[in-house]
């Protein structure tokens, strides 16, 4: 057993370490926990307006029954994004910025149109600022969104996040793949990406926390408007909620899909449980054809038919559902083609193909305009609600 020769100098080194103190030590109550970040261009200068919504811990952790206190504070900076950002925050915020747990980032339409590349580099650059966060575009002036309290949810950042997650769970109009890192990937490969647009209902932002006493739920609140379409890192257009639904279906973004059909005069609502979508790009002679096949098991949520529900009715519903999907998606593809948006990402599919012939086709930038799209869909109704045959009413 070698004598403990390493003990003596070790004590010297460790002692000198302990005296030197700890560099990375930051107490919990020295942290300004950021929950929501907003970015907007500052009038016509090249600076940006940055909004940091910081949580007030005492405001949230109050026991039940205590009067509602301000749960968040918004700090506004006017500064160029990239340079010396670290040192301007301490001018105003007395604590160290802790941006690792922020829930969402809201970008104004103006800023989105001018390109987000700088913001993405800024966010990915430092490990403390992540890009695994939902990106939202706001068409209302951004200070109205950042400066208002939201009923029911103490933290506005969390409310935006739950809007997106619930919406994608229930209706499938928004997919959860709308994070900043998805924009990064699509930006480089030239694909299209769609991010939710939110707006503020009401004229004035409700700055005061006693707004939470009012019974009014909808006005003075954030609401989902539609989708913002991005090519590379610029916002180029808007999609309505309805178009968003088709976009998500055709790009395998989500498994949920909701559709109301009218069969022999009465409405029927069908919701898909899991949709599987196959995209195959084929070359027939000189002609490029994109085959899209959709398979779905559906759930009949609302059935207002006067006719007794029999399998024939089901077949009828399924046929109508398939037919509606083919017609509507063709219409959606035509509209977007007119506006010059490669919604199906055909250019990207071309790029993925192997072989010299495909390479030649991929060179021509708007080859995707001349591609014929064939859509076929098959679905099967699996579950119905608790009404086996709806009431007739007479």
């Amino acid at each position, binding site marked *: 057993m070698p004598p403990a020769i390493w003990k003596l100098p070790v004590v010297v080194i460790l002692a000198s*370490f302990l005296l030197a103190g700890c560099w990375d030590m930051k107490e919990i109550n020295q942290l300004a926990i950021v929950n929501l970040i907003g970015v907007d261009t500052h009038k016509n200068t090249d600076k940006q307006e940055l909004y940091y919504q910081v949580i007030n811990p005492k405001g949230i952790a109050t026991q039940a029954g205590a009067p509602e206190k301000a749960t968040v504070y918004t700090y506004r900076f006017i500064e160029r994004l990239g340079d010396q950002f670290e040192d301007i925050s301490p001018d105003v915020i007395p604590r160290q910025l802790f941006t690792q747990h922020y829930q969402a980032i809201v970008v104004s339409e103006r800023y989105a149109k001018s390109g987000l590349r700088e913001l993405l580099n800024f966010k990915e650059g430092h490990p403390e600022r992540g890009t695994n966060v939902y990106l939202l575009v706001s068409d209302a002036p951004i200070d109205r969104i950042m400066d208002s309290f939201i009923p029911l949810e103490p933290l506005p950042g969390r409310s935006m996040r739950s809007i997106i997650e619930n919406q994608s769970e229930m209706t499938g109009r928004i997919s959860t793949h709308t994070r900043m890192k998805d924009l990064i990937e699509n930006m480089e490969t030239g694909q299209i990406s769609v991010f939710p647009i939110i707006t503020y209902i009401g004229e004035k932002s409700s700055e005061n926390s006693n707004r939470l006493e009012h019974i009014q739920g909808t006005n003075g609140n954030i609401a989902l408007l539609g989708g913002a379409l991005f090519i590379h890192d610029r916002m180029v257009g808007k999609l309505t909620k309805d178009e968003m639904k088709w976009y998500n279906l055709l790009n395998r973004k989500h498994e949920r899909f909701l559709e109301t059909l009218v069969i022999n005069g009465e409405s029927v609502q069908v919701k898909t449980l899991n949709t599987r979508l196959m995209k195959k790009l084929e070359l027939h002679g000189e002609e490029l054809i994109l085959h899209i096949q959709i398979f779905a098991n559906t759930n009949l949520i609302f059935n207002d038919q006067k006719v007794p529900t029999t399998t024939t009715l089901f077949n009828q519903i399924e046929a109508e559902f398939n037919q509606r999907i083919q017609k509507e998606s063709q219409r959606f593809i035509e509209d977007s083609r007119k506006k010059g948006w490669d919604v199906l990402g055909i250019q990207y599919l071309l790029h993925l193909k192997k072989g010299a012939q495909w390479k030649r086709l991929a060179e021509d930038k708007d080859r995707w305009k001349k591609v014929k799209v064939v859509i076929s869909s098959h679905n099967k109704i699996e579950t119905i609600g608790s009404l086996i045959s709806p009431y007739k009413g007479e």
Partner: protein
Amino acid sequence: MLDAVLQKLSLSMDVAVYPVVSSPYKISLVYVSSIVDKNQLLQFVIRPLTEHMPCVTDDPAESFRWCNEYLPAAEKQQASSVQACVEGILAGKCLIAIDGLSTCLLLDTAKFPTRAISEPTAETSIRGPQEGFTEELEINISLIRKRLRDPRLHFEKIIIGHTTKTTSSVVYISSIAADETVDKICSRLRSIQTDSVLESSYLEEWLQETIWSPFPTLLNTERPDVVTAHLLEGKVAILTEGTPTAILAPMTFFQMFVTPEDYYQRAEFATLLRWLRILSFLLAVFTPGLYISIVSFNQELLPTPLLISLAAQREGVPFPAFLEALLMMTIFEVLREAGLRMPRIAGQAISIVGALVVGEAAVAAGLVSTGMVIVVSVTAIANFVAPNYSFGISQRIIQFLFLFLAGFIGLFGLLCGFLLLLIHLVSLDSFGTAYFAPLAPTVLSDWKDTLVRAPKKWMHTMPRIFRPKRKVR
């Protein structure tokens, strides 16, 4: 001869000289009254000498020969040298000295005051035998003999300590225990140069190879059934005179999580309990360090709601997290020590109740955050789960080491602490068996009894790490 012996014994209060016959030559008895069985002495020595001794002949040798034959004592011994006589008297024997003769007769009438066999205090178990060892070596040996009626059970006698001369016995089953382990232990015991051995822990320190290790490489226990179980697995036990605790060697790290109850309960219940003990070891060692490094270095590990509530809690706390933890833990240690020193009944309760009361008061006074009190009391309670008390102490030492490292450089310090601990554990070995045996030098067949307590039906092979002679149980 008699005078020389008395002069050597320096006439302490309890040395008695009793002249039996005084006519032609003096025959006298010398004994230590405190450690001699009086009525046995009266009945078997004094009465026959005074009444039945035939005519007193004037030849001392004749009467000596008579005493030698007719005195009905269990063990007679002739002692010629003064030293032997003195040793005999001090060992509780009574000496018959006849004038004019150089040899004397020693009769064994020793009766040391002993305690009755009672329940072991440290290691209680709900089910299983309730008898524990006592201070008397013979009684302890009988307790083991009672359980192991096997001719190959050996008790080797070794006398240690040149003033106390405590007899300690090395117990092993020769058909199972590995020979080199037994030889190593016996040679090491024989090589001990000390004057006194009052408790088996003296031997423990001599037997331990590494001096600077907080981890005990020998298991101490007061229960004969534990000793028998380990003997059957090829280990060696060391019983010492005057202490109820026996030492068991060789021992691995994972034996510390084994309690005798594991083998008396059902298999799956025992396995879950064993995992609970391992978890509580990890809790006891890592929670303070982890809490400090999360609260003051990488806060992002906490989920957001917890982070917010912790921030709200720590709003008014004056100390940084590291100092606060140090303060609370020293208070807990003080309270625990106070609990131990109190009389047995109040002891354990005081330390827990005191801790929580002090904790609450500190929180009310705003000195400490509630989260810290929870963390420190969880560590303290998890520390009590360790079945072996000396293992509990080593946990407390490591707790503080990890706290300092985490307080100094956060998670990285904790990582280095864990690595130092692992290297230290892995480099230890107790009597030829690797200390971290079934895991570090992986011996898969032994996993069934360390990490998991397999049901009896499957346990038909012996643990291989102790190199037993017999492979099948």
